[in-house]
Every structure is written in structure tokens, then in C-alpha cells.
């Protein structure tokens, strides 16, 4: 009597999502993957947030060493990466929230908002680092 749903298949016989190898690469999937990737990157970045606040509470020496770490070549590369990740995840997150209220699912709109997110996240990253590197004179 319990013949209702799932036909019994072995794990590796189950139907799969379109495989990356046969799927034409496109903007929307790239942004979807990047949203997750930047989210994971930002999760790692919270360590720096933590370190900065604890150093600020701990004293000038610890704070200056965290600053020095940030200003090292590796630190700068990571910070630029995190800056872009933050702006991308923010902009694309807004795009997702707009989808959640039901707007923008049409293919042309999904592409238009997608390219807007790419442009906005890059522009904001450049703007922020121009401000940082020019000493706030801009």
C-alpha cells in the first residue's frame, strides 16, 4: 500500500542538476556562485572584525599591530578582496531581496540587475580605495 512516492534508486543513480561541464557559462550563474563565495570569504573576514575590536579594547600596542598587519602587502590584498566581497554581497543581496518580493525574474531584468551589481560593486571598491590611499583628500 505504501507505493506513494520515491522509487528506490541507489545514491549515484539519482537525477542530478545540470552538470557544470555541459552547462553554458552565463552571468546569472556566475553571480549566484560569487554570492556564496563572497559570503564564505566575508565569514573569514569576521575574524579581522573581531581582532580589530578586541585590539581596540586591549590597548594601543595591540591596535597598532593589527593596523600594521592590515597595511602589510598580504593584508592589503586581503582587504581589497574583502572590500569587493562586501560590496558585491551587499549589492547582490539587495538583488536577492528584490527577487524575494517578486520583482525582476524576467531574463532581461535578471541580466540588467546582474550587470548593475557587478558595476556598482567594482565602482564602490575603487571609490573606497581611492579615498583610503589619497588620505581622504578626494
Amino acid at each position, binding site marked *: 500500500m505504501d507505493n*506513494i*512516492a*520515491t522509487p528506490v534508486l541507489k545514491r549515484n543513480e539519482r537525477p542530478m542538476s545540470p552538470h557544470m561541464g555541459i552547462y553554458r557559462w552565463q552571468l546569472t550563474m556566475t553571480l549566484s556562485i560569487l554570492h556564496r563565495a563572497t559570503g564564505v570569504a566575508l565569514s573569514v573576514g569576521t*575574524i579581522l572584525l573581531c581582532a580589530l*575590536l578586541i585590539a*581596540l579594547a586591549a590597548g*594601543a600596542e595591540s591596535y597598532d599591530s593589527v593596523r600594521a598587519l592590515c597595511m602589510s602587502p598580504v593584508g592589503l590584498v586581503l582587504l581589497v578582496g574583502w572590500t569587493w566581497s562586501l560590496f558585491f554581497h551587499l549589492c547582490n543581496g539587495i538583488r*536577492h*531581496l528584490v527577487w524575494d518580493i517578486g520583482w525582476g525574474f524576467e531574463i532581461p531584468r535578471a541580466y540588467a540587475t546582474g550587470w548593475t551589481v557587478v558595476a556598482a560593486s567594482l565602482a564602490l571598491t575603487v571609490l573606497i580605495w581611492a579615498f583610503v590611499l589619497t588620505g*581622504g583628500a578626494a
Partner: protein
Amino acid sequence: MSTSGGIPKHSDLKTPLKRVRGWGSSRSGTHHFVVQRVTAVALIPLTIWFVWFVLVLVHSDYANARAMLHQPIQALLMIVFVGATFWHTQLGLQVVIEDYVHATWLEIAAQLLVKFLCVIGAVASILAVIQVALA
């Protein structure tokens, strides 16, 4: 997965809910989805504030940075930002682990680790903010 077997035959008086309950855990339903969105909405203005805050920090020394976080409104916003960030982080990483980690013991271990680290990160950060704010 689609129910390829067709329409369920109700040969007894069980309700659909009673029937589906025996078929494994449906976990937490929409709660995760909703909280992820709520924290996301909160993080839009908070992230803009945070970027401004960090830009001010870049061009100030230790004393000025401390003075900045000493202001009640800045301390408040930082605590809320930290809370929303770690909450959103835990929810996001949870889904990533659910999607990619398939060995049960490893998945449980990873989920616990992420949850513990997020709580520790949030509490440590908030304690640091409180220490600066009340100093």
C-alpha cells in the same frame, strides 16, 4: 524531488500531515529563510554605516579610534552590526555545509563548530565594544 508515483492513495483516515510526519524530519521549515532575510535587511543600513566607520578609523590614531567607539550611538551600532553579522554568517555557512558536506558526523561537527565560533566571535566583539564604550 518530484513525487513520480502519482497521487497518494488515501486508503485510511490519516491526514496528509500525519502521513508526512512519519517520513522524516522537515527540520525548521521557513524559519531559517525568514531570519536570513531579516538579518539581511538589517545589514543593509548597518553595512553602509560600518564602511563609513572603518573609513574614519583609517585616518585616525588609536586615541581617536577609541574616542569614536566610546560614543554611545557608535557603540550601539557596532554591537547591533556585530550581532546581525554573526547571525547572518552562521545562517549562510549552515546552508553551505548542508549543501556540500555529506558525511553525517562531519556535517554535525562542522555545524556545531560554525555555531560555536559565531557565538564566540559575536560575544568577544561585543564585550570589546562594551569595554571601550564604558571606559
